[in-house]
């Protein structure tokens, strides 16, 4: 069976990459193939990488407060590029009401501060 491929990405200008790196490593340890984009990626760059790398999931991390602008854009671009089979989830400093908004925009799940990495691993397995 093909290994599940996950792109962990940092959209926008935020440089707080501790969470993204921890999640990327935990997913790798769980047996997924993980690509980490590094910081300061535009939604366009993220979607390009996701398509090129043929990933199954994109995990977005943002702690700067710009999530409501940047996360939906990734989903929109995936739709435009006929890549809506790639599933998007996210995490960061994201209040509950924003999480609800993001889910309404096609982000499958939002993981807040304090989420164990196992929860992310479970989520990916359940949605594959």
């Amino acid at each position, binding site marked *: 069976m093909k290994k599940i491929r996950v792109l962990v990405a940092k959209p926008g*200008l935020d440089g*707080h990459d*501790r969470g993204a*790196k921890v999640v990327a490593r935990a997913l790798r340890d769980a047996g997924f193939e993980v690509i980490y984009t590094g910081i300061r990626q535009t939604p366009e760059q993220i979607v390009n990488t996701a398509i090129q790398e043929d990933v199954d999931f994109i995990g977005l991390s943002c702690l*700067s407060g710009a999530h*409501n602008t940047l996360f939906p854009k990734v989903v929109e671009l995936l739709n435009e590029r006929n890549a809506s089979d790639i599933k998007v989830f996210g995490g960061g400093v994201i209040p509950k009401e924003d999480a609800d908004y993001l889910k309404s925009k096609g982000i499958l799940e939002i993981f807040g501060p304090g989420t164990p990495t196992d929860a992310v691993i479970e989520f990916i397995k359940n949605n594959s």
Partner: protein
Amino acid sequence: MSEFEDIAKAKENWENNVVKKSLEKFPERKKEFKTFSNINIKRLYTPADVKIDYLNEIGFPGMYPFTRGVQPTMYRGRLWTMRQYAGFGTAEDTNKRYHYLLKAGQTGLSVAFDLPTQIGYDSDHPMAEGEVGKCGVAIDSIKDMEILFDGIPLDKVTTSMTINSTCAIILAMYIAVAEKQGVPQKELKGTVQNDILKEYIARGTYIFPPEPSMRLVRDIILYCKDNLPQWNSISISGYHIREAGSTAMQEVAFTLANAVTYVQKMVESGADVDDFAGRLSFFFNSHNNFLEEIAKFRAARRLWAKIMKGRFNAKKPSSMMLRFHTQTAGCTLTAQQPDNNIIRVTMQALAAVLGGTQSLHTNSRDEAIALPTEDSAQIALRTQQIIGYESGVTDFIDPLAGSYVVESLTNEIEKGAVEYIKKIEDMGGVLKAIEQGYIQKEIADASYEYQRSIENKDYIVVGVNQFTKEEEPPKNILKVDIEKEVFQKNKLKKVKEERDNNLVLSKLNELKKVATTNENIMPAIIEAVKATATLGEISDALREVFGEFKEV
């Protein structure tokens, strides 16, 4: 037989005869006890476990090696500066918050800028979309800076600004606004962060490659030395290294390694160490492990004094003093049961005070979810005031000195930091170590280990992996809405319409010319700022000359 030998023997007796029996019935909670820095914690510390060399290693406050503090009387003279980091939305919004905080008894300002301002983009740049005013205040031109400090006399307050790759531009704006208020440069007091190395390591708001970035750092330090003698021209920061996941020991090691790199750069450019070292300042994190944190501050102070004296031959005591700001650890705040954060912050703040900090920011309870509301910001400030005025600890100088535990941890952290610094130097210095990703990897490893320890419950976080409960999401959180971005863009458009565009162009051209030489860049930036060139335009001019850095 010496006293230490007697004690060591008596301790052995205690282990064999008293402890052993007790352990059979009541085993200890863990097989081994360790601090975050992986220091083994002994069962008991006695005078034999830390043979104190008082005069050489501890000494007196205000005297080398400054283990007990940089001022002779510490908080018996004056409390630390209560300096709450704040900024959001527009300059108008943030100015209002500053007036609120000053009225509540805050004693210094600390400006948080939004990411576009920190990375050299105007609010109308495509990369700024969604980020304007989000995690700090948006500053596009000197007009915004005037609004930010409206009604705040710059000869009366001290202002700290968290700004790095665009530091020269923001400092130039501050100088120009002060001039408009009638305050000369030499009277200005405050701090700019201006610490680019930790941006490559941990924080990520770099623009230019390391070499021109280091030149900007140097130019700012030299300009301040000659023109703003009361200004701290750099704040060498371990805070963000710690937030990225390092241990306490790594925080000291990497911060001081960076500091050594800056001092070397200055000395190589011909400056006398005693002419600038007194204006270097530091910035540390105060995390959860109470005793280790107190020891960390003391170890950092002692090690820096030794480095400045021994390695750089500093003569003035002020050149050897590690003066520092502290912020409680943002990464320890939990989104779960957020009121618990008030207690975490209290202990972290107390550690900073017992460690002898010069200024302090206490985080607000809601910061794991959003920027603080006015109410939360007030509780955070009150926390400092209660420690300062009610707890009584401020009447004592370095009260934990002589504690066998704290002195032992101080020694261990210093020793570990020395080893790290040596290792980095063997690799060819900090820039090489960053290039090879060594420092980043050390931090990432420590951060992953910390996360593992939470997930397997070796480390308990109250409300997160134990003592959890179902709860409603918090109400009343501060939100910066998207209209702020529109407002900011309109303001910028108006500024560009009303200014003399030819003048701006000529000032930007002059700046580019200076950038290609080795001349100090500050005067040309001040000129450009005064002509109302925007932060984005000035950054672009420098990008043209310096190029841009891409993450390794």
